[in-house]
């Protein structure tokens, strides 16, 4: 209790301290979905380091839980009032946030969406993100190459994020199918494919508990599943537990996306076959650099060629490389991992 009170007090002091520090030089805002997820913690570290280096004052805000839209809107309003040069945001609600973002842009702020594109994507000045479709495509192609001929008769479980089909989940899911050689029909939603190799889709909320439950449901539909796509590594760990409880953990191929440290370690331990690693630290530090540039001469960052966002890169991590698919080893992945 005492520790908690101290933490609260320190937190309040930090907030007031930051609020009083405005008015000197360039300032920037970082708004994340939460400040507890290691992915966003890493993002904040990247932003803080880059801001210190460039002499920018950084104010960080976060929602209480993933999906906390109101807190993010309040944070944008605070940033405008604060006279910040730019905002980096990972939006919880990608379409509802647009009006608040427009307000900030009208006030002359540079708004960069990190990790999660807004809807529409051009609602922000720029988007720095992982190419999630490419991330999915890499693990799909790897899974197909690793299975070889058996891929033609694969029994595939798709463990997705949420029934509301947020874009990040759809892109990874559809990328995986494309890489595996499945006709994806409408690329903007999952569940409309008619390939008989797909046993079904189930949602996990991106955590262990949901991963296990979703895997159990699909196993109840078809106990012969032998390929499992997962939205992220915690969901993969949960799916593995479900397989282990029925003694099938060694004859099923699990692939995932994210590249968090526990996830990469799980590849070394044989829980996950391969994962596509993304780089939150880079997103944030590049974002801060872009704001500094914008504050200096008004340059707006440009998207990567052939894409509508700036691609911060993705790499396939596995210790069983497949022919023709570029990958890095688990050791390299551990050097670059977050969380």
């Amino acid at each position: 209790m005492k520790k908690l009170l101290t933490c609260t007090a320190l937190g309040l002091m930090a907030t007031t301290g930051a609020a009083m520090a405005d008015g000197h030089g360039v300032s920037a805002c970082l708004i994340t979905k939460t400040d507890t997820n290691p992915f966003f913690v890493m993002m904040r570290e990247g932003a803080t380091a880059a801001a210190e280096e460039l002499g920018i004052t950084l104010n960080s805000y976060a929602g209480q839980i993933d999906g906390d839209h109101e807190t993010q809107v309040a944070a944008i309003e605070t940033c405008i009032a604060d006279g910040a040069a730019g905002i980096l945001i990972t939006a919880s609600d990608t379409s509802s946030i647009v009006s608040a973002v427009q307000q900030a842009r009208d006030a002359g702020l540079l708004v960069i969406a990190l990790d999660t594109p807004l809807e529409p994507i051009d609602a922000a000045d720029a988007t720095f993100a992982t190419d999630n479709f490419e991330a999915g495509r890499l693990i799909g192609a790897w899974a197909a190459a690793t299975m070889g001929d058996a891929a033609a008769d694969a029994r595939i479980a798709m463990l997705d994020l949420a029934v509301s089909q947020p874009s990040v989940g759809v892109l990874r899911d559809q990328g995986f199918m494309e890489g595996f050689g499945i006709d994806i029909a409408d690329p903007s939603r999952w569940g409309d494919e008619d390939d008989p190799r797909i046993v079904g889709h189930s949602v996990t909320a991106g955590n262990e508990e949901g991963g296990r439950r979703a895997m159990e449901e699909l196993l109840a539909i078809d106990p012969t599943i032998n390929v499992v796509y997962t939205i992220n590594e915690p969901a993969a760990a949960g799916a593995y537990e479900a397989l282990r409880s029925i003694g099938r953990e060694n004859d099923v191929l699990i692939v995932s996306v994210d590249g968090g440290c526990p996830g990469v370690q799980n590849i070394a331990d044989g829980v996950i076959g391969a994962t596509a690693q993304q780089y939150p630290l880079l997103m944030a530090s590049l974002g801060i650099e872009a704001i500094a540039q914008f504050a200096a001469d008004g340059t707006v960052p440009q998207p990567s060629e052939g894409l509508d966002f700036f691609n911060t890169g993705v790499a396939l991590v596995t210790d069983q490389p497949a022919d023709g698919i570029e990958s890095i080893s688990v050791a390299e992945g551990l050097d670059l991992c977050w969380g």
Partner: protein
Amino acid sequence: MSSQDNYESAVDGASTRVAEFDSQRRGAVHSVQHALHVTPALVPLIVLISATIVFALLLGDRFLSPFALTLILQQVQIVGIVAVAQSLVILTAGIDLSVGAIMVLSSVVMGQFTFRYGLPPELSIILGLACGTLMGFINGFLVAVLKLPPFIVTLGMWQIVLATNFLYSANETIRSQDIEAEAPILQFFGSTFRIGADEAGRGGAVFTYGVIFMLILFVIMAYVLKHTAWGRHVYAVGDDPEAAALSGVNVRGTIISVYMLAGIICAFAGWALIGRIGSVSPTSGQFANIESITAVVIGGISLFGGRGSILGTLFGALIVGVFTLGLRLAGADAQWTYLLIGVLIIAAVAVDQWIRKVSA
């Protein structure tokens, strides 16, 4: 003594029969109403059995297999255990929104004490259980002694405990493989045994120790609530705390003990959670409070306190499990499950109100 002074004489003409409460209504509906009033777990049991039969007819062996039926038990075990705690609190006319947070914090304490401080896992588990009990005590103290409304107290504690959980754990997951190698006792409740599996180890009924624990916990608490003085005090306090106090029940002590017991049960749920998901994950159990209240309400325990059977809660949790898996196997959109559970909640409370008229 003149007849005028003999006040007793007025009694002569009165009925000498003992007071009677014979109801004028004796129709079939009333008998049903009466039966439900006497055995409140009957409604959820009937719903559970009918739902099982409907899904069995629709899906056949896929649903009616020992594998699928025991899978439902595995899927409801965590919510089931938490719902025992929730039932106790609701029987005292309270509500506990912090159950899920207490569960997760306790599991994080068990994991982090073992892996961060290197304590023996057995000791960490005891400290984790103590942590849950302490959180329960704080809830109970605020409700019973400071007389704050349970909804507000546990709403606050939910936030406090969850924030403590995230601050303390830094949202770091402890991986299943590390736990298995260094502290397998943390995964104790995840151990399974099978009945009737084929030679390849497929199919058959799968029971985890967590499921067994849940079932035993329900049976023990059903006995305690029905046949011990403490159990009757819980009902009495929930029904009418002032009347209970006048009859000599220690209301304050009973309420504090209920919240403490709820806390330790949640901590056990946290231990079982490690067994279920393998790892220690600070993000799990976010909806355990709502899910446990759902199980309790569908199970026919009155939110006004003092009435209902804890076995109803077990049936309530199982109903949710049967609907979830059954609809999933039938290929329905997951939203239909939520829709139907919403209907069940409202129907359960409506039935509760109807039954209450019997005692009115």
